[in-house]
């Protein structure tokens, strides 16, 4: 019986972990092209989720809500790039850190004013009636999270490997100056990465909201763990974030069951500290060689 409970906790947690992985993947996309990330990514997840909820309330069918939400996320991502990140990158400063935090805080206040402070349910046509697999109950909703996360990541990886624009994306992350000499505009590639990253964040919001509900504070819980996953896995391995995401999701679920629900955040933070102390480039990260 005990082992079934452990398995149940681990599996349910792992599905949540995939959402962390998806948000962490969004960090990787922008880091690859510009060595910058959006510290307000959690608010972007929340804002897109609220927007999608509004679309549902307006009466749009779910299958139109998803592309609508993704498009909105991409636009938000582009906004963050234009209004914040680019200003700092043009001056070769690290100001994007503060600027993205500030834009995130604006997003938080705006969401509170527009949609209120309460957590709201996010209706979905996907059933949450569970079925049994080897004694572990799984819901179609959880399966949809897994499919959604892996599909988005799979499509973006396919884009990077199979299209010339995707290869240009890789070229900018390998050597920005050389890519410019090929006629690839680094500025546009960075915009593209922020658009994709915003879309990925919106997808995470749409997938996770039916499970966790939507509220202005959902950002902080998600973002911290996405950071943990990104730092532990390293900022250049898409495969790594999935594995670490699954692992962290399972671990925090077990921790909240065995130690107490207040300890839910602990495993992520401990992993984060350990990773920064022992392997700052991440478990799957390449050691960066700094030429001096």
């Amino acid at each position, binding site marked *: 019986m005990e082992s079934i409970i452990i398995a149940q906790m681990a599996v349910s947690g792992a599905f949540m972990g995939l959402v962390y992985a998806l948000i962490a993947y969004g960090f990787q996309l922008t880091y690859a092209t510009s060595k910058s990330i959006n510290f307000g990514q959690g608010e972007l997840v929340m804002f897109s989720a609220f927007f999608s909820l509004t679309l549902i309330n307006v009466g749009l069918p779910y299958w139109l809500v998803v592309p609508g939400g993704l498009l909105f996320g991409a636009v938000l991502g582009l906004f963050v790039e234009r209004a914040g990140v680019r200003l700092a990158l043009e001056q070769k400063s690290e100001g994007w850190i503060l600027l993205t935090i500030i834009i995130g805080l604006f997003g938080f206040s705006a969401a509170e004013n527009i949609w209120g402070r309460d957590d709201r349910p996010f209706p979905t046509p996907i059933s949450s009636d569970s079925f049994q697999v080897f004694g572990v109950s799984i819901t179609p909703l959880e399966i949809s999270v897994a499919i959604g996360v892996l599909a988005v990541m799979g499509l973006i990886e396919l884009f990077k490997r199979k*299209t*010339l624009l995707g290869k240009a994306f*890789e070229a900018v992350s*390998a*050597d920005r100056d050389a890519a410019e*000499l090929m*006629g690839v505009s680094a500025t546009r590639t960075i915009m593209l990465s922020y658009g994709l990253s915003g879309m990925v964040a919106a997808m995470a919001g749409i997938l996770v909201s039916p499970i966790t509900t939507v509220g202005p504070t959902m950002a902080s819980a998600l973002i911290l763990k996405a950071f943990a996953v990104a730092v532990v896995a390293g900022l250049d391995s898409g495969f790594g974030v999935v594995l670490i995401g699954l692992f962290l999701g399972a671990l925090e679920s077990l921790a909240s069951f065995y130690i107490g629900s207040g300890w839910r955040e602990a495993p992520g933070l401990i992993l984060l500290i350990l990773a920064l102390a022992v392997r700052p480039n991440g478990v799957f990260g390449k050691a960066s060689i700094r030429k001096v």
Partner: protein
Amino acid sequence: MLVVENLHAGYGTSEVLVGTSLEVKQGTVVALIGANGAGKTTTMRAISGMLKPTKGRVILDGKPVQGLDASRIARLGLAHSPEGRKVFGPLSVEDNLLLGAYSRLPLFFGFRSKAVDDLERIYDLFPILRERRQQAAGTLSGGEQQMLAIGRALMAKPKVMLLDEPSMGLAPVIVQEVFKTIRRLKESGITLLLVEQFAKSALEVADYAYVMERGCIAVEGSPAELHKNERVLAAYLG
């Protein structure tokens, strides 16, 4: 084809170029030689837009291009094979070549089939690249990376090509190989501005040459004329 007039450029407050002027006529190979730190690479960077010139003009095929982004200048027909080769290490050899033709291929689908003939042309020029087409560019030897960098620049079918220090860090045998390639490219009618430490070899392939000293052109002339110039002879060709 390429005209540079009174170019000034530098890094921060230190000015490296103080009024460089040169011209590369269509179908000619022009060598830019000079000591370390004379400003040869900076000239190249200022022409291709990697570095914004503070003063002066760069005219490519009749159009002024100074101050434009490097990617714009590249799309207007200038291919710069930079110092240190700068191949895309994690990408395959073939992907590197395809990116060379980025500005004239479709962005999503069908780019590979459209580039087949050009790829074949490069593979015939550098058979070693055909063997290594699927290999990550970062795993190639220095000489092979230089071949790839030249091939990548040729993929653009540029109006003007800038080639910066192709012999840097290569074994003498490989350097000979590189110059053999440049000679073949010259026979095919390429318009090339070549920066080289090996002034002797550069002058053997060049139609015209400029000698740079402290940020501007000190001497210019055909290779034969430079060979008669005692100062150049002593400083660079001794």
